């Protein structure tokens, strides 16, 4: 198990490297116009030395490889400035705040929201999928399958808007505006996160229902299930103790597919429900053209994604011992 974990971690390193290179190239090479020109234009100043200073300050001087090395923190080992490897993701152009500091508060919020949403998706899909499989080809099955496709098709943010709209019309309810952190006020925090997580989880939940159903159907046809029935075990024992455990293994893989989408997708819901997470940070940064923040956030999101994929793969290896020895 440790060997597998270490193997996967080592394999992640080239991917991480490639991602940082990709993000760097995207924002440095393909930028429209010159950042420094824009800043000088915005804040005035005609001192010729100013341009030089700004360029060095922002790390835009020198060769492309040199710039990348400075940003990634490779030059730190030779007495240069800190970079990504040391945890310095850059500073905002707008208010000078360190990105890493800002992320200390925002990243946990987004990640937690993503986890709650994934949990909601599982809670919605597993019982529904199991029931759909048990009543295969009868009316509940057809109804639930159509519902699953429907959930997967409608945009989640639309459901969020509808909930807020009709919640206010019918129940005079409005989503809470002041955000509470988990450490400050856990009860209020959970109350704020509950509804968004539920709505975010609906879309992947719809997709998961069909997978759970297929897996359940396959497992129920196995011989050991017939043996269990022949032994005279109760239906519920057969389903929950024997069938479900084996059916859920590939579902872990699909969680691996849906979790990245959830994490990337929280962007929209953070806007709607006014949650101070990484998504809003990115949208604000893009709107104000805050390049260091944009660059840093892209890398952080990609790393978050890689780690969640790793988590899922480890869980998969834990459940299915055959994987560890490939």
């Amino acid at each position, binding site marked *: 198990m440790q060997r597998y974990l270490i193997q996967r971690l080592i394999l992640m390193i080239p991917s991480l490297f490639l991602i940082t290179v990709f993000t760097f190239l995207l924002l440095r090479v393909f930028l*429209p116009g010159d950042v420094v020109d824009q800043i000088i234009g915005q804040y005035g100043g005609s001192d010729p030395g100013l341009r030089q200073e700004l360029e060095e300050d922002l790390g835009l001087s020198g060769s492309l490889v040199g710039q990348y090395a400075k940003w990634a923190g490779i030059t730190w080992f030779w007495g240069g400035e800190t970079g990504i490897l040391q945890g310095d993701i850059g500073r905002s152009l707008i208010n000078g705040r360190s990105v890493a500091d800002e992320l200390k508060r925002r990243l946990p919020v987004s990640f937690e929201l993503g986890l709650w949403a994934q949990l909601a998706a599982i809670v919605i899909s597993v019982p529904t999928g199991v029931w759909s499989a048990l009543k295969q080809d009868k009316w509940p099955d057809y109804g639930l399958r159509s519902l699953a*496709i429907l959930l997967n098709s409608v945009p989640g943010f639309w459901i969020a808007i509808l909930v807020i709209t009709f919640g206010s019309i019918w129940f005079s309810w409005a989503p809470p505006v002041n955000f509470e952190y988990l450490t400050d006020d856990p009860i209020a925090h959970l109350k704020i996160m509950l509804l968004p997580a539920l709505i975010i989880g609906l879309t992947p939940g719809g997709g998961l229902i069909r997978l759970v159903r297929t897996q359940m159907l396959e497992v129920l046809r196995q011989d050991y299930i017939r043996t269990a029935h022949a032994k005279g075990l109760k239906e519920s024992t057969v389903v929950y103790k024997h069938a479900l455990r084996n059916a859920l293994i590939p579902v872990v893989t699909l969680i691996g597919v849906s979790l990245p989408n959830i994490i990337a997708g929280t962007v929209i819901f953070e*806007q709607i429900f006014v949650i101070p997470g990484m998504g809003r940070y990115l949208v604000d940064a893009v709107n104000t053209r805050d390049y260091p923040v944009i660059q840093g956030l892209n890398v952080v999101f990609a790393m978050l994604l890689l780690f969640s994929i790793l988590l899922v793969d480890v869980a998969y290896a834990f459940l299915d011992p055959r994987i560890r020895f490939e």
Partner: protein
Amino acid sequence: MAVSGIEDFADVEGWLAREEKPFLLRLLSSLKAFMRRKPLGALCGFVVILFMLAGDVVPATINKITKEMTLGEHIPYLADQLDRALPFIYPYSRQDLRARLEGSSSDHLLGTDSNGRDVLSRLLYGARTAVMVSFGSVFISISIGASIGIMSGFYGGWVDKGLYRFVDVFQALPGLILLITILGLFGSGLWQMIFVLGFVFGPNNSRLIRGQTLYVVASPFMEAARVIGASDLRMMTRYVLPNVFPLIVLQASVSLGVVVLVEASLSFLGFGLPPPYPSWGQMLSLEGRQYMASQPGLAIYPGIAIGLLVFSFNLFGDALRDVLDPRLRGSS
């Protein structure tokens, strides 16, 4: 063709003649068979075609091509024709400031928004955005994915390993985040969105196609083709591609639904087409959110449009998959 279908000796003539039906008639009869076997799928296919017509996919593409070649725009758009013919369809930017935020009336079948623009017309023109972006970007992304997948599976070795790493990076990229960054910084427009969406989602499609290519390449007829001297390109296009085609169609139908939702999300956040060009996601964000208390229709109708289109794409894709290749039959 079953031998038992032949009644007597003379019937052999009719049997051969039946086989050599022209392509169009064969297409029609397979369409009829599809409608009988999968009525829901056929219905959704019909809805997809309706959306394609309303969205002017063909006229817009042809007009763009001819415009690039400086031949001018010749093909008329259906939406414009409807606008001229029907009294309750208006140009999408026409404002009637005396009729703001109204409900359904005989003049405005679905009401108006805060600028007095007719909702139904904006839905109709918004179909063009949704359909153009989805078909255009899926065409690009499937082309990229199929090329990478087939080349990867066909050549194997270092080509495969190298492309695999490349695809891995793309799979680890957070899609929406990257799209927001690119479209937010470089500006957005119809064709920018098509190309960016196509390129960002392209390599992800190559996984399954690569798997299927590996399976096909192991077949004996590939070796036979090599023996008679077929070139690499010929083998890939005439031998591998037709066998991978059902999987490509399946991927395309899934991608279509995903892209429509992604485009709606981007427009919702403000990174889609700039106003006044209508897009369903943008209709939801600007009008829907602000005025949902007084005119909830503004928040409901665009969402229904999006959901209906994606639902039809999904069901149609499912039906196609079930019909084209039973081995691929998955969760449905």
